[in-house]
């Protein structure tokens, strides 16, 4: 792993909930801005309604750090796509969350 990748991973892992869900929705498939907001609302059953200012800010930051890239589709709509670096970052975050989850479950069982 290069030094640069290391730095980016350090910056993003652990991630904020918003950043995680934005990257997660792009991990599934390339999407445009509104698609991200809708998708996140869907998979959290309406719990997480992302403000468009927040999404825009996060996306701009991720573009700068090359976690994602942008292109325009036929309707000239901007579509965001995750990069290899982005996938690496979210995989790391998922591993961390998995550990969090197993520990949470294990401790809850213990108490029962």
């Amino acid at each position: 792993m290069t030094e640069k990748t290391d730095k980016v991973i350090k910056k993003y892992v652990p991630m904020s909930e918003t950043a995680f869900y934005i990257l997660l929705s792009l991990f599934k498939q390339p999407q445009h801005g509104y698609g991200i907001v809708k998708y996140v609302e869907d998979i959290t059953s309406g719990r997480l309604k992302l403000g468009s200012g927040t999404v825009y800010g996060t996306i701009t930051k991720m573009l700068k750090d090359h976690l994602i890239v942008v292109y325009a589709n036929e309707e000239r709509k901007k579509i965001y796509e995750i990069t290899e670096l982005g996938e690496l970052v979210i995989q790391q975050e998922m591993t961390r969350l998995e550990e969090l989850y197993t520990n949470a479950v294990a401790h809850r069982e213990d108490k029962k």
Partner: protein
Amino acid sequence: MNKKFWKPFWSFHIQRTEHWIEEMAKKGYTLSRFQPKFSRFTFIKETPSHQIFSISFDPSIQHPLPKALQLDGWEVVNKKRKWAVYGNVKQKEDVKTSIVRDNLESRNKKIEIFWWIYFIYIAFSVTSQAMLLLPLYFSSDPVTVTRVESPLWILTYIMFACQIAVTMIGVYSLLTLKKESRRLSEESKQSQFLIDSTSESGRSRERCNKFKFGWTFAPDKLETWLEDKERSGWHLTHIYKRGFTFQFVRSEKKLYAYSVHFDGRVDSNAHSFHSETGWERVFVSEGSWQQWSIWRQAYSEESEKPELNIDPESKQRAAMRVARFHTLMYTPLLLLFGYAFFSFMLPNVLEEGYFSISGIEQFNTTVYPLVMFIFLIYVLRAWAYYFRVRKK
């Protein structure tokens, strides 16, 4: 056989340059060398494999190629540091995707700002020189100017010529970039539009205009005010150009979330992003450096109130921008006025007595502290806003 071209300012006409490369390709020339810094393009006589071209600017020098673009036939043909030429093997009609030019647009904006600063400096130095020479011009004493012969005068002339040349380049750049930015925004225009004012039918309905000044110091208060208006059955229909007069029309009571937004620099991407996610832009201020915009979104009793910035971090960042902007704008004025007042006017008044100074001096010594007080209030209000947001 090689063909070399020198195309100064090619990056200010990006579409024309791309078109030109395409034309060259049609004639059977391939771009073999690309020197963006020197505006040099070298072609070799060889039928190129690409049909259409797109030039992209990326300050990070990475020139990423999204998978979707790759699948659509795009390739990086030629790259040199921050610039890259992308080519597509397909026919123009078959290409569905395109390269986003946000980086290029912000680079052009930066060049524009550089030239503005240059012109402000020129204007400043010309005025200060004129101020020095004016007393000479107006004085009745005869002025004799002697020119001391020296071979070094040549330096003065050269510098003068350079200055003229640089200024001409500046004028050209600013004019061209203005046109270019229009072309680029035309190009990226999407199917959706930004609504500037909602002209509702029903002219006969009761209307009222309300005047609101100084909301930029307390955007949150304006938001609450507008939301209260909607709740009490006054629907905002129009905000006049300067942003001080708000027109309302009697209508049914409705819930709206308002959001006042301040951009350090005009970011049309952010605006199309917000309107894509269901926000309606009701106002946008003029001027290209500091831009205010007002957004709204209707919501129902059952759902949560939507917010443009939802997490406290980005809310605070936005509020900080407002506070910082007003501080940067008014503190220098405050210092300038304060300097003049405390080091010249006040001692003068104390020495001579208020009633023995001239009318204009009396006026100044009264107005200066007043103006200073107002500026101070502006700055303090902006910071009060920031701390309100932080506390929430």
